[in-house]
């Protein structure tokens, strides 16, 4: 081909057809769009960021950064961002981010707690968290003051902040089986719960916070009585056996019950956080209905065995008081032991008793009333309330034939006159006397007589044995003592005169001579004296022997004294026999003490 051999004419190369007006800078839209996207992301992330709060918990159990949610009424309002340990290692700091929309929930009194599966005595909660993991629950506060640092609760609050109702404070001596969330009953309806409890600062009681839901809170009046309704109250006292319960729930879990006493004055509903006393049981609470309590002391001479503190004071079957204290009194002047029993009387009940009798409109002064009553023979005495248990109670009654007595107002508490024993006490004392007489005569008296003789005999024998040996022994001992004394004297000068030999020798000689003389003296004067002393003793012995001879005569079987004694014993035996017969008869016919002996048919 010729074309390949020759280079073409370059001038014949066609021109490219130029296009005009095609300005293509649309590409710059891309960075603008990118900038807009970037900016919007930045703005979004800035706007989305809600407040960051810190919550302190005792432990971080179940809380995980980036996973644990914060929920209010089961709606997520935030998320835990970090869990750290406080510098002092005492607690855990949970940092959480709250959604912007929910920031208004974070008020000063907003409460946080960890919701996890909990099984307590009266509820099982948070089972859902077993699968989904724990979350932090929120109870939004009502305060206007916002806050970003909170102290987490260790257990869920029992009552939400905006729950209608009122809290009250109860003081109790013991918490019993109560716990947080223990129910509160009003006429056996559950109307509230125990919110919290704490030991009083002085350690002498427990303060409980309870919450009564609306509308039941209106039944809590200023004079409302609260008491433990826990479990079964089983009492055995002078009144017999008594079992009290509130409801099955409270038997198992414990609880509190309350009741407002009926009163014509219409007590005002109690304000929130009013303080009440929590009584141990319903009876104790109801006793406190008696506003006026007067204390008296009763002095009994007899045994108060079977009388318990809390035993009722009874006026013809109506309880008008109770025993509060039993003391032992020792009177130093009369050397008498008496039992002083302190009782509390509820005079209002007495008034009622008295008014119904005397139809008086106006109640009398208790002092005046008691004075008049005591003058009429109003006395306290112990009575057996229960033959099975032997419980005693204090009974008040009128004994017109009683010894005149009066109230002793000078004492504090004033002394109320008592009267000893009724027929029952008399019967028991009689029985005791009979028993004693039964035991007394034969054995003791005969034994005693025999023992007396024996003792006399042994005494004589001892006297016979005594003199010779002991006295001679004494003399020997005296001589020995002399000898030892001499030996001591011998020893003494040697030591003392060690310094001056000559003098000492002389002194020694003279002393020896003196001692010789002394010994002679002793031989001469003391020995005859002892002889005479022994002779004196011999005389005395002879005298004694004579006396004994007389004694033997007197005690011989046919001696008149012995015969008299025998007769006396015989008489006593007969008396005992007849008493035994009486005892047997009384055992068979105890009523005869009252009715007299039954006539033979």
């Amino acid at each position: 081909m010729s074309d390949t051999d020759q280079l073409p004419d370059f001038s014949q190369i066609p021109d490219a057809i130029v296009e005009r007006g095609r300005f293509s800078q649309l590409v710059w839209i891309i960075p603008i769009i990118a900038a807009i996207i970037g900016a919007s992301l930045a703005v979004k992330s800035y706007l989305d960021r809600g407040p960051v709060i810190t919550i302190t918990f005792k432990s971080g159990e179940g809380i995980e950064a980036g996973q644990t949610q914060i929920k209010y009424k089961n709606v997520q309002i935030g998320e835990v961002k970090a869990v750290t340990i406080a510098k002092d290692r005492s607690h855990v700091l949970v940092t959480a981010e709250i959604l912007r929309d929910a920031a208004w929930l974070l008020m000063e009194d907003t409460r946080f707690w960890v919701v996890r599966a909990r099984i307590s005595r009266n509820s099982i909660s948070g089972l859902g968290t077993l699968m989904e993991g724990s979350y932090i629950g929120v109870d939004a506060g009502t305060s206007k003051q916002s806050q970003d640092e909170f102290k987490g609760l260790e257990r869920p609050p029992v009552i939400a902040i905006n729950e209608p109702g009122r809290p009250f404070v109860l003081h109790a001596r013991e918490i019993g089986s109560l716990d947080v969330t223990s129910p509160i009953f009003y006429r056996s309806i559950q109307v509230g719960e125990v919110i919290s409890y704490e030991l009083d600062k002085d350690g002498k009681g427990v303060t409980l916070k309870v919450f009564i839901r609306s509308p039941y809170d209106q039944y809590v009046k200023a004079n409302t009585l609260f008491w433990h309704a826990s479990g079964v109250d089983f009492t055995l006292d002078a009144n017999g056996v008594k079992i009290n319960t509130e409801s099955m729930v409270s038997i198992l879990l414990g609880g509190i019950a309350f009741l407002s006493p009926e009163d014509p004055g219409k007590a005002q509903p109690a304000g929130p956080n009013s303080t009440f006393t929590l009584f141990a049981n319903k009876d104790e609470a109801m006793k406190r209905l008696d506003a006026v309590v007067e204390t008296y002391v009763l002095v009994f001479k007899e045994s108060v065995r079977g009388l318990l503190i809390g035993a009722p004071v009874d006026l013809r079957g109506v309880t008008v008081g109770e025993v509060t204290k039993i003391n032992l009194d020792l009177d130093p002047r009369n050397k008498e032991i008496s039992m002083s029993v302190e009782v509390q009387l509820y005079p209002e009940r007495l008034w009622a008793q008295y008014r119904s009798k005397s139809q008086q409109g106006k109640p009398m002064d208790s002092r005046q009333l008691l004075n008049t009553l005591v003058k009429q023979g109003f006395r306290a005495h112990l009575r057996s309330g229960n033959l099975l248990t032997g419980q005693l109670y204090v009974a008040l009654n009128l004994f017109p034939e009683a010894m005149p007595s009066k109230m002793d107002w000078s004492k504090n508490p004033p002394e109320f006159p008592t009267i000893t024993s009724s027929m029952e006490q008399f019967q028991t004392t009689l029985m005791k006397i009979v028993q004693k007489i039964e035991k007394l005569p034969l054995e003791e008296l005969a034994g005693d007589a025999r023992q007396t003789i024996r003792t006399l005999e042994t005494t004589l024998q001892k006297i016979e044995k005594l003199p010779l040996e002991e006295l001679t022994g004494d003399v020997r001992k005296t001589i020995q003592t002399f000898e030892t004394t001499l030996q001591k004297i011998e020893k003494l000068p040697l030591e003392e005169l060690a310094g001056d030999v000559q003098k000492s020798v002389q002194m020694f000689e003279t002393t020896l001579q003196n001692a010789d003389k002394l010994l002679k003296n002793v031989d001469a004067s003391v020995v005859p004296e002892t002889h005479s002393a022994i002779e004196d003793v011999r005389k005395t012995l002879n005298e004694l022997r004579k006396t004994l001879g007389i004694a033997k005569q007197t005690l011989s079987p046919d001696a008149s004294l012995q015969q008299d004694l025998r007769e006396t014993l015989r008489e006593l035996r007969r008396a005992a026999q007849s008493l035994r017969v009486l005892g047997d008869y009384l055992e068979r016919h105890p009523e005869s003490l009252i009715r007299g002996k039954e006539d033979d048919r």
Partner: protein
Amino acid sequence: MRQVELTAAGLGLCSCHVCGLVLRSDKAYNPAHCPRCHTRVHSRKPNSVSHCSALLIAAYILYIPANLLPIMETSSLFSYREDTIMSGVLHLWETGFWGIAAIVFVASIIVPLFKLLALTLLLVSVQRRSTWWPMQRTRLYRLMELVGRWSMLDIYVVTLLAALVQIRSLATVKAGAGAIAFGAVVVLTMMSAMNFDPRLIWDPLRKEYKL
């Protein structure tokens, strides 16, 4: 005898990409079309520098959220994680997957950054008509083209996981906003590199001839 360095542009010529007709084109950067097949012709890619820099700037802008926003949200029964690229790499490193950590680090952090910086360097040098080391710059361009696609690795991983791991409540993987930004960065840098005309590197050395 010294070799004559002739370029088509230097002779005022260009060829049609479709029918191969050699055309005379004075204004090398202006759009024109072939008289025979009416295909667009240009001796250099039109608006190469401006297109390239626009896309590059966009890539730069999106590079920030791509690294700051989480790229993957992994939630399982026991844990919940939101990972940015860097935190993911660190997590892999800490848990002992050093090899994977290195691969992800290279593919997702080194490569995009390298591409951005390389493109910037090329654009600036071209704009200034620099005659500085044209050979090395051309090699850089080739390397950039070769390596650029590997930065999509991260996106592939996230996409695969998000598609596969969807066991409700037991384990879920979701792509985060960062993944979109990161994908955009990779695409934009690729487009930017595509728009770059490597012939521009050599243009400052061109001698003009008149045929």
